[in-house]
């Protein structure tokens, strides 16, 4: 049984988790040009939740996640991955051909690879968090 919470771990987790999540989004968005990307970012985010799980236990983490079940995140990830396939089809190109659009005012380059990467991010995040959380849940109930 994993004992939740020494005071150092608790305090660290409380501050580290938002930072880690922020860092994961940073890694995700810059991934196309610098080291990073959806897979790594997803792992970092999963790491953030795992740290929180260790510190505060399953029910507290569920509260942080609010209504979102990690298993739903897997689904969202796969859905985004599939969605990114479609635009090329409308353009009459082979599936998965990358499409790029520039959003005018903020000069942000949106693209299907980005949507795809976000899908990877959610799928990884959901899978890992889901597995760890279930393991801990089972662990908690069985002495």
């Amino acid at each position, binding site marked *: 049984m994993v004992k939740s919470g020494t005071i150092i771990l608790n305090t660290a987790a409380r501050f580290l988790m938002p930072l880690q999540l922020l860092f994961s989004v940073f890694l995700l968005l810059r991934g196309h040009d610098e080291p990073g*990307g959806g897979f790594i970012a997803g792992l970092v985010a999963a790491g953030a939740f795992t740290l929180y799980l260790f510190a505060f236990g399953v029910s507290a983490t569920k509260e942080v996640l609010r209504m979102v079940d990690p298993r739903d995140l*897997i689904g969202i990830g796969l859905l985004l991955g599939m969605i990114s396939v479609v635009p090329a089809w409308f353009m009459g190109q082979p599936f998965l051909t990358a499409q790029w659009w520039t959003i005018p005012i903020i000069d942000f380059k949106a693209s299907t690879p980005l949507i795809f990467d976000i899908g990877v991010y959610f799928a990884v995040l959901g899978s890992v968090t889901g*597995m760890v959380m*279930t393991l801990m849940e089972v662990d908690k109930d069985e002495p």
Partner: protein
Amino acid sequence: MQLAVLMGFLLAASSPLLHRWFGHRTSLVLALFPAGLAAWLLLQAPEIIENGSLLLEWQWVPSLGISLTFLLDGLSLLFGLLITVMGACVLVYAGGYLKGHPDIARFHIALVAFMVSMLGLVLADGLFTLFIFWELTSITSYLLIGFNHADIDARKSARQGLFVTVAGGLALMAGLILLGIASDSWSLAEILSQEADLREHALYTPMLICLLLGAFTKSAQFPFHFWLPNAMAAPTPVSAYLHSATMVKAGIYLLARLHPELGGTVMWVGILSVVGATTMLTGAFLAIHHTNIKKLLAYSTIMALGTLTMLLGIGTEYAMTAFVTFLLAHSLYKGALFMVAGILDHETGTKDVTQMGGLRSLMPVTAIIALVAALSLAGVPPLFGFIGKELMLESVLGADSFRMLLVLFAFVASILTIAVAFIIAIRPFYGKRHHTPLEPHEAPLSMLVGPALLAVGSLLLGLMPALLGANALLTSAATSVSGETIDVALSLWYGVNVALIMSIISLGVGFLLFKRWDSVRAKLSMLAPIMRHGPEAGYEGMMNGIVQFSEWQTRLLQNGYMRNYILVMLITLIALIGNSILLRHSPIFVFDLDVRFHEVVVAGTMAMGALFATTTRSRLGAVVSVGVMGFSIALIFILFSAPDLAITQLLVETLTVILLVLVLFRLPRFSNLSTSLERIRDGSVAAMMGILICLLIMTSWSIQQFEPISTYMIENSAPLAFGRNIVNVILVDYRALDTLGEMFVLALAAIGVIAMLKLRHGESSNGKNGESSKVTTKEPYDG
């Protein structure tokens, strides 16, 4: 036409809906469909007879060269007409037979679907299309034989029929592919019209054997005949349709179709005549063992199928005429007789002919139909069956090879068949009245129309063979079977010849046999112990063997022990990699000792981690040392400037350690359960794996078979994919499809883990920790 045939599947699917609208008249409505198709075929007949054949082209999958082209020539026209006309009769008949049956809609779905598949089979021009329809007939007939699915015998028979015909179907597929390769065409019309002689081709023997296996299993030839009598578990309309005129003749159709290209060789003549004659005799001989009227008919059908195969084997011009005539005659009388059998069963409640008697006065119409059809089966003039039998005997007498054997077999078989015909025509209708489970009375009109029509057909065609253009139709069919023009001019009287004398003698002996049937049967029952060792026993043994083998290999391979799974996987890998690297390529050892000091340190750390992990007696120590290895690998990635890989490795390693720690608390105490022999085995497997992988990496590093693709990726990453991080561009752009697949794999794995944990969790918290906790106690963790 293609559209009409395909619409048939839609019609089949919509039959439950039709039932809601038309109630018990649905059968009549559905019968309009085959009747319409028959009319269409008749309209095409003059053109086909004139030109020889008609090709209706329709591209289906042009990129694969698969088309739904229909080939209409004399042979397919004859078969198409048989299928549609018999189909209409059977549908009307089934409406009466299954009246009020709760599942009649399901029956109609399967029957119409079968009809359409069978029609597609005989009309198909493409080899693939032919095969698809062939398999469809197997599947739909499985559904039809197993229609009474609550009955265990029906299920067993349906499965048996399916296994035998589908196993043959596999051989057929191989045969058709060989045929396509040998003739360099996938269209029957092209194959039949091409100049090249396939008989000379190197692939002729394997091709012929595969095709024959397919045809023989489908058409119940010896030794695959046993499924047909068992298929009598089907409702009688099904037997009347599938087991007299259509499905069992699919194999015959295939042989006839390919006869012009493949027939006439020593192998063809030898196999077909001997197997056909053996089947003919076996069927006729086994028939008189049975008192069940449907079994009697089934065995006599086997006899007829054997006759047809034998005639194709003989292959003379006379035999071709006999083939088409016998085919038509048999379909007419056997369909009628099966329907009569169904009427008897339906009205009296028994299938045993010895339990019936004196029904003539109660069911006069049925009695007349039975008499006409049975006399046609016996080959008594002036019925059409007589012409078929005369021609058959005549061609046997004119056979080029195995003449004496064939004559003997044909003579004995025809005596036995005549006895069977008398049993069916006389036994139930004459003599003393027996008490039967149901009070018999004449069948309803819907059940009489079909058999009456077929019986009248037998009579009219016998009296006036030239009527209704039958001669022209059969001429055209015989021409397509032989490949050369054959003029069929049937007549009832060929003058006094050997065949006629044989006919008369067999009639007399057959009648005597019928008179003494009961005592003959009693004597035959002594043969029962020998009969048990027939081909069916072989089939049963094979099926049991397959089940036992799969149980054995499941116990061996899927035994639930993680370590065994890993062992099997590693040994397989070693075998595969070892085979390819040591035997096919020469391994290359490149010892380039240009290493830096820090690289040696990292590698040394890894080696020490590995060594410690295998020797430590502490679980936590093992986890930590595996972690050390992982982080060292990350370090190597950094040293060789692959930051993305390094980050990923670090993160994965961290999460792995966390997961391991979580699991660690649930493991039992560390104990030593494996013997030293097992340790040596495991150790050597691990060592071999390590050495092989090392060799593989070194070899693959020094072999440069193709220009590496990485140059292209590096050059185009920024200009084409707008990304400077090549690893990420590969993941989300170049190889996005792979990544998508991996996402699904990951998701599935996660769902699997969650489901397994939750399942065990749920079970144990409900207090039912029987099954699942056994797994943990059974599993001795030997570290």
